[in-house]
């Protein structure tokens, strides 16, 4: 049976189709600015980690984290920023002692907790990449769910501002 018709994108014939971009406000910042910002944060995080101030380091990397679609020419650059942020975050996660995790999470703001959950899932979606360690991410996930509840996971799933 001919099933090729199933692959036809019928949405292009609908002038009233709902675009992804209409569902959330795009990151207003310029990609170059975001990249510069991400580099600066990586530096700040390193110095905070040296002082062993995990909560502050996490807040730095998670607040105003870049989000959104990888549009056209800015795509490559955004990708670099995304990866860089994830890399910085993983460094923090991997260096935190497991006994300290609940305390660290409790000190974060609600927004930051939600963003952290997004990055945990992003990390889990990239097994074997860089420093991604499943057991570390799952450990954080468990502790984060204890503090922020399943509502935090629901928000990660519904939020279109993906990291």
């Amino acid at each position: 049976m001919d099933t090729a018709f199933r692959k036809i994108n019928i949405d292009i014939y609908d002038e009233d189709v709902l675009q992804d971009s209409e569902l959330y406000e795009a990151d207003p910042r310029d990609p170059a600015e975001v990249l510069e910002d991400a580099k600066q944060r990586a530096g700040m995080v390193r110095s905070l980690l040296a002082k062993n101030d995990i909560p502050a380091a996490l807040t730095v990397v998670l607040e105003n984290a870049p989000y959104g679609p990888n549009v056209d020419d800015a795509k490559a650059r955004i990708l670099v920023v995304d990866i860089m942020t994830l890399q910085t975050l993983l460094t923090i996660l991997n260096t935190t002692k497991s006994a300290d995790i609940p305390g660290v999470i409790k000190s974060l703001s609600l927004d930051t907790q939600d963003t952290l959950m997004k990055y945990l899932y992003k990390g889990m979606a990239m097994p074997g990449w860089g420093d991604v360690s499943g057991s570390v991410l799952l450990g954080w996930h468990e502790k984060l769910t204890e503090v922020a509840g399943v509502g935090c996971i629901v928000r990660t799933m519904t939020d279109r501002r993906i990291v």
Partner: protein
Amino acid sequence: MPEVFSLSQSPITSHSFNADRSQLAVSLNSNDAQILTRQGNEWVPEVTLSEHDKLITSIDWAPSSNRIVTCSQDRNAYVWQEQPDPETGRLVWKPTLVLLRINRAATYVKWSPREDKFAVASGARAIAICSFDPENNWWVSKLLKKPIRSTVLSVDWHPNNVLLAAGSADMKARVFSAYIKEVDERPSPTVWGSKLPFNTICGEYASPAGGWVHTVGFSPSGDVLAFASHDSSINIVYPGGPAIYNIRMPTLPLVSLTWTAEDTIVAAGHDCRPLVFSGSEAGWQEAGTLDDATSKSAESRSAFGGNSSVGRLKAGAFATFRDADSRGQSGISGQTSASGDTKLHTIHQNTITNVRPYEYSGAGVVSKVSTSGVDGNLVIWDVNAVSALTSRLGAAHLR
């Protein structure tokens, strides 16, 4: 102590009481609506309203005009009225067709406060505002379309009979003017605006973390709007401020809400128990739940997941599957762990899909609410019996 009625084994899609609460219209996840009459502690089926040929999605019973409106996935709505049968003279429920002019399922229906109009939300990115046309003896509709971008999931009327709030799957709650020249008098100015021709947008509010908006509700005065969305949050909007209070919950999303006073909201959803929120223009917070799982009466209910720290489903469900896998025990015969543990702590055993005011104790003050849900139960709660959330309820964490 909440009154619990087990109406069916199947989900209750929608429920609505008549004015004196002696009768109840429900749809049990089917093409038919049923009218049940209360006899003591039982609800006895009396009449079946069958006209729809797809699933009924919503029912609303107008208290003073005693008319029922039903809407369905078949893109139709019917207004049912009790009329004497020409042959026997007995009162029977007769449907009147509504010309909805929508090309997708109708999702939600609600009578206006004066009961001369009703609004039908639909998947056709439109809300049909219906009013009666006596010449042709049917209901005609006018469509609110712009700027809705996706399925409308719920609507609620402002007490002035003109403004309409709508929650939609495009992540937004909106306030529209549904002014119909033939029906309405010119409305007096409100906090939402003063000039209100049909389809004026008086407010548009996005859910903070991008969840589709399940439910909307005007406060008794109509000056405040509340909406709950699938990002597990509830938002309270003061248009004059303008101030929006967002409460993020650690639990699963709410799907239905009702104001019980100008400073209190009862809302329920996937977490299977009604939550109470209270506040004022200065701020809002969660006040507790109506489902007191720690009370004595609740002790007889099983302690499912009571010791679980993360999800209340974790311990019980996990044990059920582990036993089935490693010991070949099925959930039904497994006496020790499995059978008792598959019961939830809460009174409702599944998602609550409807919360409605049941009893009033003054103008705009609700003293009892009714809830129905996917578990086929109808529960009537005393609004004042609020108890603090406890960790025994598993997923619930207070902060």
